[in-house]
Every structure is written in C-alpha cells, then in structure tokens.
C-alpha cells in the first residue's frame, strides 16, 4: 500500500459523496485554487457527481498560466545571447509570450534546457564555467523556497555564472483580488494543499473573516477533494466561515519553517504582473539586495515593466473565475491543444487544457 491509496479509494469516495448530498440543500459556488486540483476533479470525473450541489469555479493556481507574457519575452531575449544557457521547467516551454514561445526560441538556435529542478540549473552552471546559466524561476510558494535554496547554494559556492529570472507569485493577494471584485461569486474555497504545506495557513484567517468565506486546505486526490468540498459545504450550510485543514497528513498550520526561512532570506515581497489580472500589489517576490548578483533582471538589465498586449485569449477571465473555457468562442476551434492561443490551454494544469482533454458536455 502506498501513501495515498486510501485517498484514491472509490468506496471511501462514494461514502463522502453521499455525505455531501445529505448536508447540501442547494448548489454552492466553490473555487479550487490550484490547477492540479482542477485537473484532478476533471480527470476523476468527480465534478460530474457533484454538479447539483457544487458549481466549481476554477482558480488562478496554475503558475504557468499566470506568468506574465513580458517575463517570458525577457527569457526569450536572453536566449539570443550565445553565452547564455536558459534553464526552465518543461511546462513553460510552450507558453507564448507576446510573440513566441521558448520552444520556438530554441528552434531558432537559442540554448534552452528543460530541467526538473532549479538544482539541475546549478549543475549546468558548474559544468559550463564559460557560460551564463539563467534559471527561469516561476511558480507559487511551493517552488519559491526551492529557487531560494538554489541561490543560497550558488552564493555559498560563489558560483558567479548563475542567476535567476524570477517571476514568483503569492496566492493570498490574488485570492483577495478575486474575492474583492466579486465577479466570480465565489462562496467557498479549497486552498492549495502544497502551497500551504510550505506557508502554513495563518494568512487565510483574515481573508476568511473579511469575506465571510469558508476556506478548506485541501489535497489532490479524489477523497481529498471530496472531503474538502464536504467540509466547505458543512460550513456554508451552517453559515460559518473559518479556515479548516483537510490535508492533515501533509499540512500543519505553521507550514515548513526551514523552507520559509530560505524564502524570506532570499526574496522580498513586491508587486507583480499576472497574466489576465494586470499588476497586483504585494503579490510577487523579488530577489533581495544581498543576492542581487543572482538576479537576472539586474545582471542583464532586463525591463521589469511593460504594457499588456490585447489578444483573443480570454484566459484572464477564466483565471478570475468569471468565465469557463466552454464560454470562449475560440475554445476547441481556433484554440486547441495542438494550436493553443493562450496559457490556460498550453499548461498541463490550465483549465482550458483540462476541459479539452477530459470534460464531457
């Protein structure tokens, strides 16, 4: 038996579905934050079992989807420098900036290496002393400490040919943005389990209170998601609004102190541009002064701000929970898995790719 087997058990899932239906008196609008959760709902088909009592609103928790096109353009501009090796997570390779993708830049002769970990980028730097290795660091709070660790290791080794093009994002500010605008009409939230594994969930109490909204920290397996939904609906039916933790086998309120320590050592909070949202205050991470030599923006004098270009892609509305992929005129026609117009179709965790792959109806 492996770690998650219980949480994949269809009999356990069936019982929780019965419990959900026994407490719910109406349909509730619940947002799952993380793209991995969106895909899990659709891949297992449990969203269909719950349609009478849950309207799922897909959240912005897909880092590939919300990375601004401008920073992708910056990454691409670096690949034109023949002394640069750009290392990136695989998911980012196909996402279009304002003009093209990293994969296209690679086809045009740029040195782009797909890596599984920022630590692999460090190896590239050690093994290629005559090259400038830049790690394209994107992600939420789950990934940021790992990038911080890479920078700390680089600093300890005085690795001068390594830097990070950082576009890290924080979930709570985006959540506040979505809830404040009230366009999506979210009534309950399933918070991203792995982000909370690192950061804990103290940040969510003020949000829960301010917007009177239940927030349940939830995992990624079918039983996790169903338990998260169940706990959310129990609160909603009772008119409660507090933070609960479903993902207890992994998440504790304080999160992981070591990981957070590394994060705040290397990064400071800054405003950040989100694809589809524009600029959100205090929603991103910027490399702190003591580590500026590992900041690719500084090293290569890259522009930090630029204007949004309009496009046919409505991923912004999707990421804000206002529209579903099915409401996009281009979905399945001009915009498909083979020919994506925007990030939510490119990304393995984007709502649009999930709908194209899995969703019936």
């Amino acid at each position, binding site marked *: 038996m492996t770690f998650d087997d219980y949480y994949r058990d*269809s009999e356990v*899932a069936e019982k929780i579905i019965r419990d959900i239906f026994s407490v719910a008196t109406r349909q509730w609008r619940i947002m799952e934050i993380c793209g991995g959760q969106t895909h899990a709902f*659709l891949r*297992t088909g449990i969203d269909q079992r719950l349609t009478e009592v849950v309207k799922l609103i897909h959240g912005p928790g897909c880092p590939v989807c919300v990375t601004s096109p401008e920073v992708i353009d910056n990454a691409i501009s670096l690949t034109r420098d023949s002394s640069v090796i750009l290392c990136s997570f695989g998911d980012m390779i196909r996402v279009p900036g304002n003009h093209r993708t990293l994969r296209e830049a690679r086809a045009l002769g740029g040195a782009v290496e797909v890596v599984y970990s920022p630590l692999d980028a460090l190896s590239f730097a050690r093994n290629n002393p005559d090259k400038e290795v830049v790690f394209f660091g994107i992600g939420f709070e789950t990934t940021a400490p790992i990038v911080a660790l890479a920078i700390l290791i680089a600093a300890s080794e005085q690795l001068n040919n390594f830097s990070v093009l950082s576009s890290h994002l924080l979930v709570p500010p985006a959540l506040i943005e979505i809830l404040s605008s009230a366009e999506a009409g979210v009534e309950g939230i399933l918070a991203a389990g792995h982000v909370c594994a690192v950061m804990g969930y103290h940040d969510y109490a003020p949000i829960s209170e301010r917007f009177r909204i239940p927030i349940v920290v939830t995992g990624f397996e079918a039983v996790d998601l169903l338990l998260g939904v169940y706990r959310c609906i129990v609160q909603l039916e009772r008119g409660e609004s507090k933070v609960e933790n479903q993902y207890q086998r992994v998440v504790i309120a304080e999160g992981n102190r070591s990981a957070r320590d590394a994060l705040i050592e290397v990064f400071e909070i800054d405003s950040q541009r989100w694809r589809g949202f524009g600029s959100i205050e205090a929603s991103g991470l910027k490399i702190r002064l003591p580590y500026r030599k590992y900041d690719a923006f500084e090293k290569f004098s890259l522009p930090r701000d630029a204007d949004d270009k309009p496009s046919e892609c409505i991923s912004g509305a999707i990421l804000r929970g206002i529209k579903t992929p099915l409401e996009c005129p281009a979905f399945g026609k001009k915009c498909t898995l083979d020919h994506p117009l925007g990030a939510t179709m490119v990304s393995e965790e984007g709502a649009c790719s999930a709908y194209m792959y899995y969703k019936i*109806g």
Partner: protein
Amino acid sequence: MWICPTEYECDETVTVAHGGGGRLMHELLADIIGPILDDEELCKSDDAAVIPQLLGALALTTDSFVVQPLFFPGGDIGSLAIHGTINDLAMRGARPLYITVGSIIEEGLPRNTLLSIFRSLASAARESGVRIVAGDTKVVERGRGDKLFLNTTGVGVVETELPITPTRIAPGDRIIISGDIGRHAIAVMAARASLNFRQPVLSDSTPLWATVRALLDTGSDIHAMRDITRGGLAAVVNECSQMAGCDITLEEDAIPITPAVRHASELLGLDPLHLACEGRFIVAVSEADSESVLEVLTTITPENGPSIIGIVNSTVGDGETPTKPRRNRVIMRTPFGGARYVGIPTGEVLPRIC
C-alpha cells in the same frame, strides 16, 4: 540495477569505408553479419532475394526504428525491429514470413555494438520462424546520424477469410486488451534517464503472431486488432473509434497497469494511457466471441492480466453517462462514477521510443 549488456572490449569501430561498397563492406557483411543472420537466401548476396510462391493475400509492412538508447531493459533496437514488424503483420491476421533489414550506421559505432544488435535481430527472427532475406547497410559520417537507425519491411500471408480492420468494428463489440500497458515506455525512460528502479521494468517487446494465431483458432470473428505503440492505448482506441465511426467507452478500473508503471508515471507526470508498448494489442470482437478471446489470452499470458476494457457504443444517448456523446470520441468511466474523454496526446509524449 540494470546495466547495458554490450561489452566494449574490442575498440574497433565502424567507419565510413565499411559502407562504401568496397572490400571492407564486403568483409563486414560476408564474414560477420552474414553468418550471424545465417540465411541461405541472404548469403547468396544477390541484388534481390527470391522467395517461393506464396499462396494467399500478401500483407506488407514497413517500419523504421530510431529508439534511444539502443539497449534498454528487456530488449534492444534489433529485437524491437523484428517484433515490431512481426506485430504489424499479425495485426492483419497475416503469418509473418520474411523480413528485410536496412541499417544506417553512424561512423564510430563500436563494431561490438553492431554485432550485438545483429545477433539480437537474428535471434528474434529465429524464435518466430521468420527469415531475414535481404538487407542493406549504409554508413554516414560521425555527427550525421545518431548511432544506428534501422528500417524493415515485412511480408506475410493473410490467414483469415474476413479482413481484420477497424472499419469492421460494430456497436456492441467488446474491446479486449492483451495485457498491462506502458512497460516499454518506462523501460526506455529508465535507461535514458538512469532511473533507479528497485526491480527493473522490462520492455514488453514481444512477437504476437503465435497469440494471434491462437485467437484465430478459436473460430471467433475478429473484427479488428491493433498493437499499442507510440501514443499508447489512447492513440489506438481513438484510431479505432475514428475508423469505425463509433464512440467507444472504456472502464478505467479494467485497464491493467502494473504498480511500477503507475509509480513511474506519477513521478514523471505522464499519463499511462499515453505510454508506448511493443507487445500489447487490443482486439475488437462481438460480445458473443469476447469470452473465448479473453480465455485464450488468459491461458497464454495470464501474468499480463488481459481483460475486457470497453464497449463500442451504438447510438447517441446509449448508456447512462454521458448523456449526449459527440461522434467518434473515446469516453472513459472513472472509478469514481464520473466519465471523461480520452484524447490523443498532442505531439510525441516521448520522442525516439521505438
């Protein structure tokens, strides 16, 4: 930990001269490769092989093999080439008889590597009673090829009365799978990425004609068979669905996947339904014939876990979910009582897998 079996004792390598048509090439072919392949017709060294008259409809197939790395747990490019060619013929109900092998060798390939692969080709052919009757060898300069590419042509004789092709798939047919999926892809991945398996996953590369012959012997009317290669089960079932003009519904719980393949897929973020196999196939038969087909598969290779995995849908609205299926889609019922589409993966999930 699996270790590549090739011995690199001899540091002789293949050079461009070996492909030049001159004495060196003649030596390579006549003195070394010829005896390994050991075929009477081949060794005559005529420009073409002449084979005895064949009675029945001929099946022909061609295939190229670019797998990287050349050696992987459970096989190599040589055995893969023979099995792949045999299986293409078998899928049409044709007994495989003759194979040709063309090779494009990159200069610098160690001779022992080449010989090891040819021994593997010869052995795989012999095991299946197939003759390698013609071949060709070219050598390209270092950097212009990637160690070795193989191309084959296979010839067989069709042994069924009715054609075996997905256009014969009919509503109500059962889709049966011959065994667990994804082993070949994971075996190649493991070799490529040096994944450390406690128990190595071996490629499922295997010849399928004997199994197919046993299925034909049941007297069942086999509508279609397809072997699962690149693109995995998802690709093959979608192809059948398109060609048949019918939706197909699969049961996720019925699809056999070993724990090792499952773990590896999760770790690497791959969908098992997209993983290549090289010795697995699906059969489409009527419900009436499905039990005897399953019984034969279970008798021959019970350890692979053959099972009935799906049904071909009849009209729109058939079944409780989904309520309005679109044409020509593959639907999978999940263990959680939901349903989702199974799409064809975009592009290549894993390049150079076969």
